[in-house]
């Protein structure tokens, strides 16, 4: 079973306690942006077969949104971190690179 540690309340939560929120670290494109940028922001997701950064909500717990790094091909969870950031923490990236030497990076 997929489990995540909520970075806010510290509870180890099962998938049934959480709600998935899709790709993390999206940059918003709004008024003034090009059609291509706006389309990509709305619809074009990374959808990698491998390391993926995602939003999750501890819906049936503390209710907070947090972010997580997970492998979509093995369901291994590398770690979770608070949502108030525009990029993953450096130590998490280092840990993933250590486990997945061929990984091309988070961007």
């Amino acid at each position, binding site marked *: *079973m*997929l489990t995540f540690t909520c970075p806010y309340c510290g509870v180890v939560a*099962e*998938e*049934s306690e959480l*709600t*998935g929120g*899709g790709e993390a670290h999206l940059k918003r494109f709004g008024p003034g942006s090009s*059609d*291509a940028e706006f*389309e*990509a922001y*709305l*619809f*074009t*997701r990374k*959808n*990698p*077969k491998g390391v*993926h950064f*995602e939003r999750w909500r501890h819906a049936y717990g503390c209710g907070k949104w947090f972010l997580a790094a*997970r492998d*979509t*091909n*093995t*369901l291994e969870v590398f770690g979770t971190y608070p949502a108030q950031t525009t990029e993953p923490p450096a130590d998490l990236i280092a840990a993933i690179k250590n486990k997945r030497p061929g990984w091309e990076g988070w961007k």
Partner: protein
Amino acid sequence: MRRYSMFAVAREALRYHAGWERAWRSPEPKKRYDVVVVGAGGHGLATAYYLGKVHGITNVAVIEKGWLGGGNTGRNTTIIRSNYLQDASAAIFEKALQLYEGLSQDLNYNVMFSPRGLLMLAQSEHEMRGYKRTVYANALQGVQTEWISRERVKELVPIINLDGPRYPVLGALYQERGGTARHDAVAWGYARGCSAMGMDIIQQCEVTGIRTVNGKVQGIDTTKGAIDCGKLAMVVAGHSGVLAEMAGFRLPLESVALQAWVSEPIKPVIDVVVMANLVHCYISQSDKGELVLGGGIDHCNNFTQRGSWYTLEETTRALVETYPVVSRLKMLRQWGGIVDITGDHSPIISKAPVEGIFVDCGWGTGGFKAIPGSGWAMAELVAKGHSPLAEGFGLNRFREGRFIDESVAAGVAH
């Protein structure tokens, strides 16, 4: 290709069935093909079949990384219906249903199409209104479907519990022509038809790269060597994004797991297909007597071909409440398929940003029923560069905001 017939059965009966030939050849790839189709599932094989049959293009290879029909074609609950809400969807799914009706004869291969009738239960006021809207829309589109009362539901499905404590059954959307088919046979029948036209079906051959020159496709690199092609059709469902990345573009898709499972075989208890979109459970009974059960999609991206435990639990809960007889059954097998979901829950049949590449993907949770129609439209698009059936399903619809919104019409799963 020797035709299957009663005479063939009689002939083989007299000589110990030693004369049956293999249904399709498994040749080594040639250096070049006019069209290479990636993905030997139902959609890919149907594309190749109609390319040959309707458009006379037979220098075609179908490349498959695993085994033929081993992806979502072999993993779904084989539901067939055409009563979709939007005009573009109703048109292509109705085309598919009409082709299914004559498919066994067309392919000379028994796909066991069984138009046993299909119900979609309405278990909330919203669902009831939604399905009635579908009935009116379908009437205008010329697609046969009807709204039936809860009493009629009980007549058609004696094992159903109409008065569940949470979600009582209020009625159903009923398509008498809907039903099921034997999923493997659909893939095998198309494969046999393709092979008979001289096409090469190459299994255990994974695409490792896509070669382009000046924005035009030249060929593909595979685990069995390089293959040149004039046109490339990508028909790989959940892995479409992986392939698109090799060609240097992205698709508006996310891949998630969708599960199904079957019970131990029992005597006939249900002779229609019943879907319940609110609680996410689908049920039908196979010819062997197994109850074929399905649920909703998981809530996160997944490439593992197995689903989440909680989805299984939720669907089982709904099943036991709706069909109490199920509570005493043992389950035999459970599996997952990787479905590719678009923003509007409608498929993509489109030219790709790279010249010569065409994509047929995004069928999400409802691809099996569409196989013949999807293949028909995709073949026309590849051969002629334009297909009326595929017109609404272009990639440009996301940029232009012309969605074919079936997520409201069909719920999460369809």
